[in-house]
């Protein structure tokens, strides 16, 4: 019976259980509170109904009661807030070393690119037990990447990256929905998340047509666009040396310090004059409209791969030689 009418979707990620726990707590709390109110209303309505020649007794109110039923709920609310905030914080903080998969949304499909170079449309294959970070952007309007079985959802915006992450726990095929209304075929912008055992996943990786790894693609685009002319691998270039830049704080010309994350790299390609690195001139041409979202993703992946940080490669910890970068671009 309850197989036909489930109360929650499959629970297939490490985070799903946490969300459900809070949900069940809230369902119990809400049921208790509504029942309490319903029973009180019903009880008073019956006990004090007029047919019993009930005479009303005038009662002014009670400050003590008012304070009680303001403060106690507020206390409970704060507990819910804290609990919800902790879950949210975890949902929005991808662990170090997660595999990074790029997602490009457009009306009305999901284009997905694995770091190894596999490309998929409306399907995402992932192995069980690995942290996956999705780096997402949209070509047109706002979409939202929603996987009910993982209890995660994140709007996918044009013009910048948003991210979400998960670690799948149960092999299976799960829904992928677009959850932000995006036009005619909004309800058709759905797909599948295929969670596989690691061995199967390796087989799947080996089986598909690959286009070369994302970072390698990025490198060839980097060459084609002539970027190395200025962004040289030494300190003599007209643009900063990009080695080891990703993920580091960078001093800008106006004194601000920003972290060179995906959105910074993206902005620096599309609108280079916005945040110029200290010590360099704003001479880089604007690439807005000249590179596609996919090429941009590849470029970001390439620049990331120039940092020895283990963020690009899937979960393999690397021994990073300390203190070897971040000096060059400050000159």
């Amino acid at each position, binding site marked *: 019976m309850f197989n036909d009418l489930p109360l929650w979707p499959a629970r297939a990620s490490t985070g799903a259980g946490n969300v459900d726990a809070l949900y069940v707590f809230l369902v119990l709390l809400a049921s208790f509170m509504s029942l309490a109110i319903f029973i009180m209303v019903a009880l008073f309505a019956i006990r004090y109904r*007029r047919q019993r020649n009930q005479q009303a*007794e005038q009662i002014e109110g009670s400050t003590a009661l008012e304070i009680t039923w303001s403060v106690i*709920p507020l206390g409970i609310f704060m507990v819910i807030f804290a609990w919800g905030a902790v879950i949210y914080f975890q949902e929005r903080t991808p662990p170090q070393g997660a595999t990074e998969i790029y997602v490009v949304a457009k009306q009305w499909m999901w284009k997905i690119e694995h770091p190894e170079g596999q490309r998929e449309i409306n399907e995402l294959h992932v192995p069980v037990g690995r942290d996956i970070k999705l780096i997402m952007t949209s070509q047109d309007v706002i979409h939202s990447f929603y996987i009910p079985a993982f209890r995660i959802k994140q709007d996918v915006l044009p013009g910048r990256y948003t991210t979400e992450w998960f670690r799948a726990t149960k092999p299976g095929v799960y829904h992928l929905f677009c959850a932000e209304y995006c036009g005619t075929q909004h309800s058709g912008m759905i797909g599948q998340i295929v969670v596989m055992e690691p061995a199967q996943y390796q087989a799947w990786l080996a089986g598909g047509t690959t286009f070369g790894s994302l970072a390698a693609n990025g490198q060839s685009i980097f060459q084609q666009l002539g970027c190395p002319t200025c962004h040289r691998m030494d300190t003599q270039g007209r643009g900063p040396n990009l080695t080891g830049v990703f993920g580091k704080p960078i001093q800008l010309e106006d004194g601000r310090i920003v972290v060179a994350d995906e959105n910074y790299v993206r902005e620096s390609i599309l609108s280079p004059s916005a945040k110029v690195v200290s010590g360099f001139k704003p001479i880089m041409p604007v690439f807005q409209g000249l590179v596609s979202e996919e090429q941009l993703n590849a470029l970001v992946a390439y620049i990331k791969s120039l940092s020895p940080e283990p963020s690009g490669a899937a979960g393999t910890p690397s021994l990073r030689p300390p203190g070897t970068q971040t000096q060059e671009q400050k000159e």
Partner: protein
Amino acid sequence: MATAAAITAEREHYLNKEYGIRSWLLTTDHKRIALLYLMSITFFFFVGGFFALLIRLELLTPAGDLVQADTYNKLFTMHGMVMVFFFLIPSIPAVLGNFLVPMMIGAKDLAFPRINLLSWYLYIIAGIMMLHCIVTGGADTGWTFYTPFSTAFANTKVIEAGLSIFVAGFSSILTGLNFVVTIHRMRAPGMTWSRLPLFIWAHYATSIIQLLGTPVLAITLVLVVFERLFGLGIFDPTRGGDPLLFQHLFWFYSHPAVYIMILPSMGVVAEIVPCFSRKRIFGYKAVALSSIAIAVFGFLVWAHHMFVAGISLYSAMIFSILSYLVAVPSAIKVFNWTATMYKGSISFSTPMLYAFGFIGLFTMGGLTGLFLAALGIDVHVTDTYFVVAHFHYIMVGGAVMGYLGGMHFWWPKISGRMYPEAWGRLAALIVFLGFNLTFFPQFILGYLGMPRRYWQYPAEFQVLNVMSTAGSTILAVGYVLPMVYFLWSMRYGKIADENPWGAAGLEWKTASPPPTFNFEEIPEVTWEAYNYDEIPEPVEVSLER
């Protein structure tokens, strides 16, 4: 209307003082304007309701087989726009508020009668624009107008819809302005702030929101229209604009707008419950101040609509904690209404049944709001049917229940006739059952992950959708019934005397229907609000048809 007046022709009142179209279209009498509003919002309610039924019918099957995808998108867009801007926001303030605010405080009219008429005309102009927009193709952006879809991608009548809502917004602003000035300046001698009916407090709070929130929506829509026309780039990411800025500005109004819809209903319930419990309201001050608190805190929480939209983590935390703040005054109200019934003398007339319904459904709507304010859960359920169910519990379960309760409660005052009590109770029951059957399954659907605004959906969601559609047909019957018997009662209803419920409040101290200037002479108030110990109980309303 004319016949009802003919029977009570011996006495002049606002309905029979003048006749003819002119006397209505050029009236500055707040009571007549209220009736103009009543007719127009009822029309739009059924327009919006018609769209709702089509939506539910489409969702009967998982495949999109009744209407085209584009048509479906237009249906939910127009349903939202019509219901929010042309029914819910004007509903209680413009009809019951217009009729009652001056009467309850002992004034002859609102402070600016001509502006009051102007705001009805603005509403009508906006309504005609909206109808024109609908019949010439409609818009498909969702009522939320999210950019850049609305500005750069939708190829439907977005500009016309936007301008229509812009004009409707000014109608709403002027109504709010009129109420605030009236409540401040027009109170009868002795009508101090602590003697004001809670209906007035609720409308005061509502008006504050209308005054300070609506302009932000208006300017945002202007920017959307300009962006569409001239490509300004303010909300366009390809030109460096930020689509989230639109969402911030939009929700700055549209979240408090929910309180524009629900606060007046709370005011209605605060009148009905004491009357049918024969008791002074429990905790008058707490209920009055909680209305103001809702109006103020309501402005601090808007970005809880945007937890997954790409706002910063820290901002999300701030808005989440503030959202819980606004839940407290709502809880206070529910507790106080319930406590009012304690040791009362309770009768089950139709308005009271609606008040019961309101308390129940609002409680559930409010409590599910706690789910949505909890960040971790919101990520999963936002933009799903959970949200749809939640806000329909507030707006339909809450606001519309309150509206219908108020209409029954004050119908004798408005028309001078009683509605048929048995039918009234039956309709209340049908609405309650139909509503729950329609919207409760949607909570489960939402947690299961069915996104909102879906024209077709995976087959596993069908059972709950069928339940919901079944409920909606029952709900429709429940809504048509009152309209039928209200019309019927204008000719055949029992004649109502001045105060059929034995209710407190100045509006019950004048004739039904009231004379044009409400009172033969301006009353002087020497008693506290809800002095039910001093008012004799009426004879129990019989169930005769």
